């Protein structure tokens, strides 16, 4: 009786396990449990975890907070459209917003220092993709995500939008410059 016919024995559930199946199920179950417990383990001993700290917000409220930070800590501007580059003090709350089609403002952080990075969207869904370090998160309108990050490499990082957000999606870039501490 093959798999496309009813089982030969009507009480098929009494058929004993083959050794090959029993052995494999045991091995696969152990591996499955290992992978499961690896995730809480990394929350305790690993260094790369999302805090899951998030708040409901509105585009207006979030823009106001970001604007206040930009007004206080802008150190220079870049490109023809004079995008502000903001250097907030280490340990502080840093606000980044995504909108059609830019990440605003540009940020300058110090290597080895921690920052509470807030991210939200002003309009549609966006994807925060920091390259080349390769950190990716989802950014939603109405939600303010908070990530405590500690840059441990210096140099220029680019924020790319990796959630499709319409025709200008592929032009939506931002920057995080990481300087050596004490400069």
């Amino acid at each position, binding site marked *: 009786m093959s798999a*496309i016919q009813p089982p030969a024995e009507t009480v098929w559930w009494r058929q004993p396990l083959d050794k090959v199946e029993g052995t*494999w199920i045991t091995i696969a179950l152990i591996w499955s449990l290992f992978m499961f417990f690896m995730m809480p383990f990394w929350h305790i001993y690993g*260094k790369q975890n999302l805090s899951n700290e998030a708040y409901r917000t509105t585009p207006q409220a979030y823009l106001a907070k970001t604007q206040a930070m930009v007004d206080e800590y802008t150190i220079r501007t870049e490109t023809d459209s004079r995008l502000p580059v903001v250097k907030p003090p280490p340990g502080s709350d840093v606000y980044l917003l995504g909108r059609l089609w830019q990440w605003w403002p540009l940020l300058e952080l110090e290597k080895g220092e921690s920052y509470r990075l807030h991210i939200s969207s002003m309009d549609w869904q966006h*994807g925060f993709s920091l390259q080349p370090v390769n950190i990716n998160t989802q950014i939603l309108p109405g939600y303010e995500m908070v990530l405590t990050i500690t840059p441990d490499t210096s140099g220029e990082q680019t924020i790319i939008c990796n959630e499709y957000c319409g025709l200008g999606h592929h032009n939506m870039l931002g920057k995080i410059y990481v300087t050596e501490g004490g400069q």
Partner: protein
Amino acid sequence: MSTEQFRTCPESGLQFHKPAEMLMRANAVLAVVMLLIGGLAAILVTLTRWPAVHLLPADRFYQLLTSHGVNMLIFWMITFEIAVLYFCSSTLLKCRLAAPKFAWLGFALMLTGIIVNNMAVMNGDASVMMTSYVPMPANPNFYLGLILFAVGALIGCFVFLGTLVIAKSEKTYEGSIPLVTFGALTACIIAVFTIASGAVILIPTWLWSLGYINNIDAAMYRLVWWALGHSSQQINVAAHVSVWYAIAAIVFGARPLSEKVSRIAFFLYIAFLQLASAHHLLVDPGLSSEWKIFNTSYAMYLAVLASMVHGLTVPGSIEVAQRAKGLTNGLFEWLRKAPWGNPIFSGMFISLVGFGFLGGISGVVIGTEQINIIVHNTIYIPGHFHATVVVGSTLAFMSLTYFLIPVLFRRQVAFPMLAKWQPYLFGLGMSAFALAMMGAGTLGVERRHWDMAFTDAALAFEYPASAYTLMGIMGVSAMVAILGGAIYVLVTVVSVFFGKRVESESSFGFTFTRASKAEPILIPEGGHAAAGKWGFAAPGTFLLAIFFLVVFVLYYAVNWKYLASVWPMS
């Protein structure tokens, strides 16, 4: 019950209920048409993402990517699956199909939905990708088409369930339903859950697009939409695993190693697969880690365990059947002497290996809560799901088609030489395509992105040269896979509409074991194991499974190592 309503296929011994047969044909033909449309979009999309070609302008690219996603992931797969459901109920249980007129209504709704949705996308104001994340708006007909299609598919599910009830009450079979029908039932139950989730989110979104609802919460949308989006791929998994078992039975007369193990594995799918919505929300704001860990692991990887079990028992049952026929030399004679020139088998086996090694391993690794940080929304993701849905499901369905052409459509398979090579071109091309995208994704290349060079952006960024090389390999492999896909459509269309009618046994396209006449695989004295080695009934398969596990463990470890190199965050 009149017997005139039935015909017995002289080749396979299968009994077809004529109204069911017409419905299977209609659904299968519509499915192949959708595959053709989705495939044409695939050509243009891949030729645009291949950096050296960069064919389409941005608006056309996003439009056709939307079309490709919806037509392939939803319309092709589910329409084919409805045909499979009718086959697994009416044909395998030798039972009349419940309410054929109702089934035709379902078909009409699906067809209408497909047309309405495709017209919205072609109109150019619904380039929102398959996911149509709010608050990015689409033409209301985009959602309406999906809703109509879903209602039609739901009717198909109920016709399937009704047929099971009729078969039981009319006693068309004895004991339990066949394993393959059990797998189809699993697919059907997941489909009902999926379609219900789709209704819960798409109906309000449609009303929102018409202006009757003010606001749809973006996070809520993603949670419920992915209960549609990911679970619909689990219908495919349950369906293609059933197809694997069916092909093992058709080609080899294989019987499951044990009904108990295979059925419990299917049950684990029913119980846990739909938790997979979480895979898409691992780096979303507003959800706790506890929620993410439990759901992304399908409750401690119990559904992954189920797939690992099927991955052993399907080839294991083939090995046992082959050994019983005397192919007992060494560990792998049963596999070496398998009918590699028969596309029903070769396609199924490439599907099995590709789904496990490429789609399965990558899926579990990137579905790990923290590892998702280094791959979310990169082109790694389509790399992963082309390995599952295309190498896994689509190739399995293609293999089954080579069986259905003579048995269901009663035509010879046209261009048998082309058909023989088709699974290799499609399966291996698509595997290389998926691997290249996974590689590029590891380097941070984004999915759903028109220009990886950022030519028109105010700021600049350059990916490493290796990312461009990988995207070039992706383009070349895509062309190989698309050639394989084109051959499939050509062979199917020519066979079904212009093929020579199957009259006698000798005019048959491919040889395979006939279900009703298959020599029963006798269990030797001392159980299966007597034919194997080390007390194992299927020692060769076991060794392959251990090799799979070693690759899995290594790749899992490599990704944790990569994650550990990223900036610390908490």
